[in-house]
């Protein structure tokens, strides 16, 4: 394609459509921004479902239908959110979601440091920061898996009322996106080790970092909504 684009001439002027940095965003970066737009709309659909269901959730309490959230059966388990989970045996387990959140936020910073490094042509700094980002991303996924096992142990699942359905769908699809982002980071690191990126050529690095920031921002929203937004008691 590059040679075709370069061959495209008008009145003798050579027009190189793919010359990097000639006019703003590179094609891959713009493509990623548009892809992120579509992802935003995907999560918007899920968030809309969550709020709609949460707002209309009702339960029978003392013979009366009342609005509450989370449902009564999980009220004890989740009463001390976001920092601890109270198990059915009465133990409080440190809820790993808060550290997981901090880890993901930190990974956004390391990711950006990596982008800044490659823009300076500092390949070592770029690789080190992207490597750290990848490790932090995997750590987040492990912590989320641990969180799931605790909740599964308490009998929570996709089928346990709309609370379980929305919680696991939203966090699950976010986790899947973290996984996808980690794959992209791994490819970038692999290609980076092969020396394929430089100050002049790093569109994929930038696109991947944009995606990683997006995944991080979705998580901040999810964390705020699922953990920090106060519940409604009967």
């Amino acid at each position, binding site marked *: 394609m590059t040679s075709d684009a370069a061959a495209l001439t008008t009145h003798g002027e050579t027009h190189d459509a793919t010359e990097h940095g000639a006019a703003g965003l590179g094609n891959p970066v713009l*493509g990623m921004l548009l892809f992120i737009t579509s992802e935003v709309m995907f999560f918007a659909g899920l968030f809309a479902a969550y709020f709609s269901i949460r707002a209309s959730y009702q339960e029978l309490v003392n013979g009366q239908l009342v609005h509450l959230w989370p449902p009564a059966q999980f009220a004890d388990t989740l009463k001390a959110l976001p920092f601890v989970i109270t198990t059915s045996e009465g133990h409080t387990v440190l809820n790993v979601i808060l550290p997981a959140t901090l880890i993901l936020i930190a990974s956004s910073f390391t990711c950006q440091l990596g982008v800044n490094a490659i823009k300076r042509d500092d390949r070592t700094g770029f690789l080190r920061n992207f490597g750290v980002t990848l490790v932090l991303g995997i750590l987040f996924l492990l912590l989320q898996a641990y969180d799931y096992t605790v909740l599964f142990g308490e009998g929570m699942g996709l*089928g346990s009322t709309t609370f379980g359905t929305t919680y696991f769908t939203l966090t699950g699809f976010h986790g899947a996106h973290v996984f996808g982002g980690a794959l992209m980071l791994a490819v970038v690191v692999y290609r980076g080790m092969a020396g394929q990126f430089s100050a002049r050529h790093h569109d994929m690095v930038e696109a991947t970092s944009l995606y990683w920031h997006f995944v991080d921002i979705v998580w901040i929203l999810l964390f705020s909504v699922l953990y920090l937004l106060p519940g409604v008691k009967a």
Partner: protein
Amino acid sequence: MATTALHPAAPAVRGGLYEWLTTTDHKKIGMLYLVNSLVFFALGGILALVVRLELAQPGMQFIDEAFYNQAFTMHASFMLFLFIIPILAGFGNYAVPLQIGAPDMAFPRINALSFWLLPLGGALMASGFLASGGAAASGWTEYPPLSGPAYHGTGTDLWIMGLVLIGTSSILGAINFLVTIFRMRAPGMTLFRMPILSWTVLVTSVLVLMSTPVLTSALIMLFIDRNYGGHFFDPANGGNAVLYQNVFWFYSHPAVYIMVLPAMGIISEVLPVFSRKPLFGYKAFVFATVGIGALGFSVWAHHMFTTGQVFLPFFALMTFLIAVPTGVKMFNWIATLWRGKLVFSTPLLFAFGFLTMFLIGGLNGAFSAAVPVDFALHDTYWVVAHLHYVLFGGSVFGVFAGIYYWFPKMTGRMLNETLGKLQFVLMFVGFNMTFFPMHQLGLMGMPRRIADYASTAGWTELNTLATIGGFTIGLSMVPFLWNVMVSLRNGRIAGDDPWEGNTLEWATSSPPPPYNFDHLPEIRSERPVFDARHGRTATH
């Protein structure tokens, strides 16, 4: 670049089939889109004829109710998701890079992926017919609880998975179009010199990008409800069945514009060329297109008036407002024809088909936008008439205008005019015979999606008429297919510019070389080829 390092010579010539399976050339991918879409048009058409055959007379003569439900569900699913949307994307794929003077799409390999997801998704959807319990059968809208875990077998799950793949194809295609249009226009090709088809593809791509992922989220929630014990749409466990309708129509109303805007773009290419005039009010047309796209996001709940769960005045008002930019376009087209030197070739006939039939589809749509009228007409055959006047009378006539218009560019040969006119007459007559009586059936109270009706209902004659019309539409495909087969081998040689076109695709050879252009004319207006032909440059 000071020195242009030529890439190694073109790779060794690949064999015909291998080349078509692995191509990343936007023109070949565009044609693959067209062929694949026409295959699903045929399948969807056969299912439509099955439906019409069963409805011709009261009583169940040919199929049982269960298969009837699958037939109308899969008819609509094929026609909407695997015919109209992708065939318009196919025209976009073929024409947009040519029209803006680009060598290809921005991401040629993603472009190939977008295409190949379509036959895959289509096959998944269609494989429901082989599954126990048959294909999806709760209508193309797949509302829960009818589509919920309590009903139907694997067919609905296959339908969901297929549609997620098709949606992904649309999203990737939209990203590709947007980057191509924003980043790869030839020097001089400013946005306001861009051909109207490219503009409609641009707006359509924004709609796809913003709405299709929302459909994906609805489908995934439905899938979780069906297979993993979720309760999103299950009122018995705190879910909300109308939620599905909201999320679904948040996609599927903009999808109506996804299905008609590029067809408007096609006839906006055809009308100026065949009336030998520039498009009347180019900028007004562009702004009307953008306006339809924007308003399209605020009307989804007019499909849900009767649920009692939506704010009626708002959605009725917004729906009526859409008539304004649409009306602007009607006047653009009529004023383009006005005092033009009309050349009655087949593309113009199909464009006339679009203009007249889409007008009816718009008017009967405005009726349904009035809440009290909609309460009476909701889910009757009136709605079936309305949507077919928009999507068949509008989009499909536009599609055939496009096929007759660009076939010479794609193949280097002209389609036969006599057969083309024969096809148009059969299709136009058959179409009106099928769908006009449905207005009356709807007003008489016949509900849609029923397999049978009482012989005393008074609906028999009109249904029989509609069935005869349906088979006439089917018959109109015979001259079309014959025309394509004969013209591919023996059609008159087209030359670069058989219609005296305005836009850049007519400035290169027919078919164009893989890299599209050896030389581009100067681009000083939205009609660069017209300018070059007449040796002057307009100042815009």
